[in-house]
């Protein structure tokens, strides 16, 4: 595990639908040849309308999530309004960039719904911030992305997007040794978020 890229374990998928956003990730926690846990959670709601999902080192994923949650909770109280998806992603981007010489080993996506509609952003370890319609991150991304690439249309609904995300992660699990053991999903629409966990 000398290569940083090889530490980007797992598979994360995010799809922007016309009525919301779907984030999904598998549950495997592996260190080299050792499968340490089958119940790693990598998809988290941040607010009622914004969530994040990551691949990489679980400690880093958990830390990033907690830091963003604390900052955004505080910001929402201070601003007296729901925070935008872009603001959440930009803040995370700055935190990642500030640590660029000892980076968090995690690739993250921030998705949700705000005044401007459904939004999805992806971030690498160093904090680059890219807005996209769909994305796949982690070691399994190379396998997962093909399925989404052909299955995605801009008129996709949240329901269809969730099915597509699950199929894409299953495909990655079939060929990526660092991915597996179940799928967590987070669906965000204008009426709030719902979490789901699928056993394999």
């Amino acid at each position, binding site marked *: 595990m000398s290569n940083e890229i090889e530490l980007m374990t797992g598979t994360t998928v995010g799809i922007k639908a016309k009525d919301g956003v779907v984030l999904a990730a598998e549950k495997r926690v592996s260190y080299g040849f050792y499968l340490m846990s089958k119940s790693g959670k990598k998809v988290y709601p941040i607010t009622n309308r914004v969530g994040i999902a990551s691949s990489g080192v679980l400690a880093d994923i958990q830390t990033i999530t907690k830091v963003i949650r604390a900052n955004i909770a505080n910001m929402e109280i*201070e*601003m007296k*309004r729901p925070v*935008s998806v*872009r*603001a959440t*992603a*930009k803040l995370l981007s*700055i935190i990642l960039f500030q640590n660029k010489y000892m980076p968090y080993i995690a690739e993250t996506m921030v998705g949700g719904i705000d*005044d401007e509609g459904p939004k999805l952003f992806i971030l690498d370890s160093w904090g680059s911030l890219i807005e996209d319609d769909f994305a796949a991150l982690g070691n399994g991304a190379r396998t997962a992305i093909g399925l989404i690439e052909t299955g995605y249309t801009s008129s996709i609904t949240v329901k269809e997007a969730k099915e597509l995300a699950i199929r894409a992660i299953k495909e990655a699990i079939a060929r990526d040794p660092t991915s597996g053991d179940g799928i967590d999903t987070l669906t965000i629409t204008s009426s709030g978020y719902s979490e789901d966990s699928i056993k394999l």
Partner: protein
Amino acid sequence: MFSPQMAGYDRAITIFSPEGELYQVRYAGEAVKRGWATVGLKCSDGVVLAAEKRKLGPLIDLNSVEKVYMIDTHIGAASAGLLSDARILIDYAREQAQIYRLLYDEQADVEYITKRISDLEQAYTQHGGVRPFGIALIIGGVDKNGPRLYQTDPSGIYFGYYATALGSGSTLILEYLEKNYKYEMDINSCIKLTIKSLSLVAESLEADRFEIGVIDIKTKYFRKLTMGELSKLIEEAKSEGLPQKPSA
């Protein structure tokens, strides 16, 4: 000069009087009351910030005197009191607006900037070795919530307003605004109402005696009225009829 009870309690800002007052903060409020008249108005169409400028000497170039400032593209502020203190707060507010953009990739709310300024003002009423800012600001702008108008004072308190005035003659201006203000106005009527209210205390009605900043709801962009625009609106306000100045 001072009553026996009061003696001594105005020596340091961090000492309360037995009545629970901080005299230095109150004196800072006096500096605001003696400042040149400043008015802020919001209407359904945007926000207007205006100030009167007095000719300090026959050779002064009033165009170089600034009392209405841009904080960010969508926020402006007008000040009354010690202008040198205002500059420090304005620089701070501009910096905070840019930090917010850098952190969140969006424009700061007007209330957020107001709060940042008020927090700084409050700190200068509680720490040793400093004095309070002798300045009050009217901060206005258009953000996600629509047109917004706030006023801060040296104590660090802030309130939201539909219309407000600061400085000498502000009581007169507020009286006039209370009778003539309404929220549903287009931006030009709002500017003219501001000019009319300032005419109650203004030394003269020449264009260079006024400084007016406007943020309308469509462009959400702060801009200062040019001399040409000012002269035109002053003429229009005159033809609509200016309020009667009370006899001294």
